[in-house]
């Protein structure tokens, strides 16, 4: 029971937007799509939703292909945000909710709950064009989840929001997942994916460079980061075998090391060299992994 992409390929003429992408997106989890502009995230989402036909490959959800008969089970927040500027929030959501197969009464009830949750109950009868961009985005999010979908696809849900609203939306997304919604979302912010997702896929020019569970990806990557704050000069650590990268910071240094064992070697090297205030072994960040795999800085 999952959303499965098999060898999915999309070509526009000679351009290949998505190249033989195979993924298994588990149920009731949050799956993160990472990648820069033009990496193929939006194209992949559109193919999952059936808005675009794929050139090759197959997409199934719980063993069946996705079609309009299932649209009441699916929620979508497109990257290109859009609502009817002249309609009120209520009219808008009622229309979009009905298109997802809901009854008016139920829509209004759900809408009230969501507006309350986002602390914007006063917008119920306001026209969308009167709202700020951040608040429009909240309404847009509500339109994607009003029918309590089983599968929710969020294309860059947090872009363009201030930190307070990002947190508000994040907690809403997490709650939906807890209630059993499978969520696929894309972001170009590594930390959002690191924070929220169990599984992820980093797309680069239409191909997955990294995919799998977050823990697995980090573990199999092997390399670790070591953060040391000390009163003495730490430059001699560059020569310790197994240290890949040395970066001086204000209070000491940041090292990238080949594996955990190297940290023990360094720990003993530091004995008697002076006062060590911090010695911390860190998992590599997704950003480190991305740079390593793609060979270029991400942002």
């Amino acid at each position, binding site marked *: 029971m999952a959303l499965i992409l098999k060898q999915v390929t999309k*070509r526009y003429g000679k351009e290949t937007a998505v190249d033989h992408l195979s993924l298994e997106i588990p149920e009731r989890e949050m799956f993160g799509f990472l990648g820069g502009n033009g990496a193929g995230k939006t194209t992949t989402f559109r193919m999952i939703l059936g*808005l675009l*036909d794929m050139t090759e490959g197959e997409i199934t959800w719980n063993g069946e292909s996705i079609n309009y008969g299932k649209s009441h089970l699916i929620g979508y927040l*497109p990257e*290109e945000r*859009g609502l009817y500027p002249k309609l009120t929030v209520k009219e808008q959501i009622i229309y*979009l909710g*009905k298109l997802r197969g809901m009854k008016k009464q139920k829509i209004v009830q759900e809408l009230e709950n969501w507006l309350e949750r986002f602390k914007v109950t006063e917008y119920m009868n306001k026209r969308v064009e009167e709202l700020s961009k951040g608040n429009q985005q909240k309404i847009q999010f509500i339109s994607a989840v009003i029918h309590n979908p089983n599968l929710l696809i969020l294309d860059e849900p947090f872009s363009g929001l201030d930190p307070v609203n990002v947190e508000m939306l994040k907690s809403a997304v997490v709650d939906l997942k807890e209630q059993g919604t499978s969520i696929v979302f894309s972001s170009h912010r590594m930390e959002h994916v690191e924070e929220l997702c169990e599984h992820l896929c980093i797309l680069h020019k239409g191909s997955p460079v990294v995919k799998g569970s977050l823990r697995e990806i980090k573990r199999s990557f092997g390399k670790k980061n070591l953060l040391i704050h000390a009163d003495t000069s730490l430059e001699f650590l560059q020569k310790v075998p197994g240290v890949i990268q040395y970066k001086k910071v204000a209070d000491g240094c940041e090292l990238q090391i080949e594996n955990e064992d190297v940290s023990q070697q360094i720990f003993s090297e530091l004995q008697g060299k002076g006062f060590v205030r911090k010695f911390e072994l860190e998992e590599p960040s997704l950003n480190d992994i991305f740079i390593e795999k793609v060979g270029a800085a991400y942002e």
Partner: protein
Amino acid sequence: MQHMSKFWVILTHTYMSRLKTKSFIISTIITLLFILGLANIQSIMEFFSDESADKIAVIDESELLWEPLMMNAEAVGEDLQLIEFTGDEESGKAAVEKEDYKALVVLTLNDNQLPEATYYANNISDMGNQMFIEQQLQQLKVAMATQQSGIDQETLADINEPVVFQTIALDETAKSMEELNEARGIVYVMLFVLYFTVMAYGQMIMTDVANEKSSRVMEILVSSAPAVTHMFAKILGIALLGLTQVGTFILVGYLLISSKQGELVGGIFEYLGFQDISPSVYIYAIVFFLLGYLLYATLAAMLGSLVRRVEDAGQMMMPLIFLVMIAFFIAMYGLNVPDSTLINVTSYIPFFSPMIMFMRVGMLDVPAWEIVLSIGILVATIILIAVIGARVYKGGVLMYGRSSSWKDFKRAMTLSKKES
């Protein structure tokens, strides 16, 4: 089943949200006022025209013409008053300049003892009075001239009687002159209604689609319901809106007219020939109207989905407007020569046939197979455009950006295609 209910959701939304817009309400009210004004045109014109009759001074130098002229004028009962002026010509002109009189007419006899007149007025742009007096004098002159040459009244009446001229079509199935005139009336009305409908509601469909696209709401819409469902719900929603609007006009117009029966109705209706037209013409009118609307509406929806900004909708509307205009002008030309080759050929060309084939059906006796062929081609074209339109629509709504061009048509097609 589910698609059907979504179809109704979109249709109702299209209908209701348009119905509530200010522009729709205002344009409906303005048109209603216009109809109201048209129906009361006589009272309005009377209201604005001068209440008192124009006074015209007459100096009769012949001392012979005044009496008969005045009697003729009174018999006709025109809205002006002739007054014999006793002063001389100069004081008469002065009185006109002071606006005591509207004009001064000086009557004389020429060498042949026939009437002549000179007309003085502050301005001679008001043709009504001049022409009236001229006509009266003309009659007087004819009477005097015939009398002088000794022709009696009976001979005169014979001379004046119009010639008897009858036109009869030898082909028994051809329409008689009266029938043709009647048909011309309904064809006129149908052409105007179709022209107006395509212009107004085609534009509405296009801006609606363009609006949804430029506000980016389209992507959510097409993720909830298929593009084809969306497109046709939109087309029919606007069609219902059109029916509501035109229906209101017709209802109000009918009520107004029937409340003023006799005053002007009979005349107009008889002129347009609505009285005894065979019902088949009405049926054809409805069939061709609906097909014509569907054809142009589908085209409008397709073009609208290619527009990237609402401002570009006008540009996209141009080819459509040209097509309707060409069809309209060919049909207008055809009203006078309905059996010309041009009309024959164009009555099978889909974008023209709704107007031109209908005109032929109304004006001539067209063999059934020709009508069936024309309708067949029309229906096939509508289906073809709907299929292409649905694909362009599906691809077109996913294209955003600044430019908008015919290249997009190709792009939209490939976007919605499997292989490219």
